[in-house]
């Protein structure tokens, strides 16, 4: 059956309208990440400035970073890239899981699924429309958060040390990982939503993905792993494969009757 992109588009527009129709839903989803994208670089700058070179040297020592120039600049660069970067990399997971769970399991919870599924929409049109409505805002928000935190860090480093730290190679590579993290999350939510009863159960899947990402900054601080270009490229390869696998599986496993009756 040929796909009618207008129907998929209608589903995306409807879902986005629903999400943005209520400040209670989109408020925390947008403002909390934006707050942290401003607050965390400022906090990093505060530590760099007031904790002193000894503290910075100790952290850099634990992390196995050798400094040749200014300790403060090295600390700011290390902390902003290796700690804040991975922390903000949880953004596409959190946002995508919140919107996707609301979009899929929310139809069941609000008892709107029957009208939607009895309408002339194919499974592909429905899933593409719903995936797009989760993917687009999560990537837009992640890009905004990365831009804000990089901009603030650059402002601080320029004023204090006369250099710009971002965009660097790791920053670009992390940003490149974000869409595949979002897609993997959405694919998992589709699989879980078909079998779960409510939004909360579907959202819980995101914790499965957040935990390994949150291990990255700790691994970096305690010198367990180096966040090199190779690390991020390896991560990207794994995410591309996993995103393709879970999205394909999600689409294949999607069954109207099961979706309604689960």
């Amino acid at each position, binding site marked *: 059956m040929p796909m009618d992109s207008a129907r998929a588009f*209608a589903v995306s527009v409807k879902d986005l309208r629903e999400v943005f129709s209520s400040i209670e839903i989109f408020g925390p989803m947008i403002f909390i990440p934006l707050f942290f994208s401003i607050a965390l670089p400022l906090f990093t700058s505060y530590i760099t400035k007031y904790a002193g070179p000894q503290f910075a040297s100790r952290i850099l020592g634990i992390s196995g970073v050798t400094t040749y120039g200014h300790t403060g600049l090295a600390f700011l660069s290390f902390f902003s890239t290796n700690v804040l970067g991975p922390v903000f990399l949880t953004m596409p997971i959190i946002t995508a899981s919140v919107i996707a769970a609301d979009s899929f399991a929310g139809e069941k919870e609000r008892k709107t699924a*029957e009208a939607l599924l009895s*309408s002339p929409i194919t499974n592909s049109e429905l899933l593409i429309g719903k995936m797009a409505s989760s993917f687009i805002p999560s990537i837009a928000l992640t890009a905004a958060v990365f831009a804000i935190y990089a901009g603030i860090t650059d402002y601080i480093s320029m004023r204090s040390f006369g250099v710009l730290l971002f965009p660097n190679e790791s920053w670009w590579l992390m940003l490149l990982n974000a869409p595949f993290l979002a897609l993997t999350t959405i694919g998992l939510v589709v699989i879980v939503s078909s079998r779960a009863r409510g939004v909360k159960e579907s959202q819980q899947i995101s914790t499965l993905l957040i935990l390994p990402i949150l291990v990255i900054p700790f691994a970096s601080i305690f010198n367990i792993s180096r966040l090199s270009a190779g690390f991020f490229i390896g991560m990207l390869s794994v995410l591309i494969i996993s995103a393709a696998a879970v999205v394909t599986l999600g689409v294949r496993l999607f069954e109207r009757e099961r979706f309604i009756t689960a």
Partner: protein
Amino acid sequence: MEGITREEGRHPIVAEGVGKAFGSALALADVSFSAGRGEIVNVLGPNGAGKSTLLKMIAGLYKPTSGRTMVLGEDAYTLDTVKRERVSFLGENYALYDDLTCFENMKFFARLYRIRNFEAELGKLLRAFGASEYRDRKLGELSRGTKQKIALCRAFMNRPSVILLDEPSAFLDQRSSERLHGMLNRLARGGATILYATQRLEELFRIGNVALLIDKGRMLRYGEIGEMLGSISELEIEITTANRIDEWKKRLVGVRMTKVSDRILKAEVSSVEEIPELITKISEAGGRVINVNSLGQNISKLMGNADG
């Protein structure tokens, strides 16, 4: 069922030995019937009879575990999108989005059903249900009855050839129910095939002439409504009046009635034809009748007769 043709134009809805089980629980077993073009089939049964399951199978939401359901000449579960554009289903829930306005909800479904000029059609339907003023209001702000009217507008907006309604009058007031029944009768005269699930016997007097009786997942009877009702020796009805019963009851003689509350009474009539006569008598005595309901016992009697 013998003589059933799958030709779309003659029998847009066909069920052949349809059964449905959810795990080990059997919801419906061996239901066979066909609905012709322009026919309204009342699916009557008490709660849990299997009416919703049957409608959902015909709407293509559930896959039968035995037998098959055909809609417009094709398997209902795999019906193609072009034919599905001509089918409408409204379940027990109004199934619209509370965070969107009535207009936004309709626009969404109009895109799914590829309805051109939906605004004109929506305007007409909202007027017909007396709901024009709610066009730009969020669904979540409306009463359940108004939401039901909007949901009915959604169900009729695509000018369907096959209409599947599951207890659509459950939340409607008397006037809106009458409007709905009038509209369904008009749509049927225009060629639409309608399946109307209800547990209110009095609705059978107002729409269609065919009924399918089901109970506990089994099909009890399928045929003419008049013939079925004729098998009940005594109908029990509940009458609601706008004024207090004590104000006029003394003037009413020769009618067996029991007062249920200040404005509600229970009466017994020997046939459906006696109901208008009784209402006239009450009006003449000074009672202002606002609603007449058939009591659940009638369905039990009907089911009992069909079963026996």
